[in-house]
């Protein structure tokens, strides 16, 4: 268990270091292959965030309601 945990931590560290560069390359390749791909509008972006905020807060409140603090 300890060896697996150490190995996973090392992989996590490697991922933290290397993933931004990998994503940047993938994004560039996608943009070249699909120029002018449809992008969301300003209204869609704002609405998406608002919806995500409300549903995530609701999820918190649901968990807290289901697990009342025992005093």
């Amino acid at each position, binding site marked *: 268990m300890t060896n697996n945990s150490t190995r*996973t931590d090392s992989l996590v560290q490697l*991922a933290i270091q290397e993933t*931004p560069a990998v994503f940047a390359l993938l994004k560039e390749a996608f943009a070249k292959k699909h120029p002018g791909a449809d992008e969301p509008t300003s209204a869609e972006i704002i609405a998406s965030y608002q919806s*995500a905020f409300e549903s*995530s807060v609701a999820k918190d409140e649901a968990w807290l309601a289901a697990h009342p603090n025992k005093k």
Partner: protein
Amino acid sequence: MKRLILVLALIGAACASAPVNVTPEAQVAFKKHEVQKDLDLIRDIAVDANAQSIISESDTRLVVVWHESALTIIHDTTNWQTGLRASLEQLQKDLSPQGQSQVKPYIALALAIVKGIQ
């Protein structure tokens, strides 16, 4: 392996840049949404760990209460980065050693991402 996939998802969300032809308000909303996804992961990991009895209910409550507060800070304030960093650091201190063992790497990653935005 599951942790590695989650970390890649977190970093991927942080790497995303806002679409170019949108209003400043939409760019702000986009960035806030990306940060929220990272915080959602911390909450979800804690709730899942609690469901499997890996971390205590009190630790999970700490994370959930923090999460709701953090999301509200991001949503309602302009200079949210400083408050969010402080709350993440405080959460790290407040968790028990067992709770820390589960979420500490993700809190550290979220801190790094928020620092990158400031």
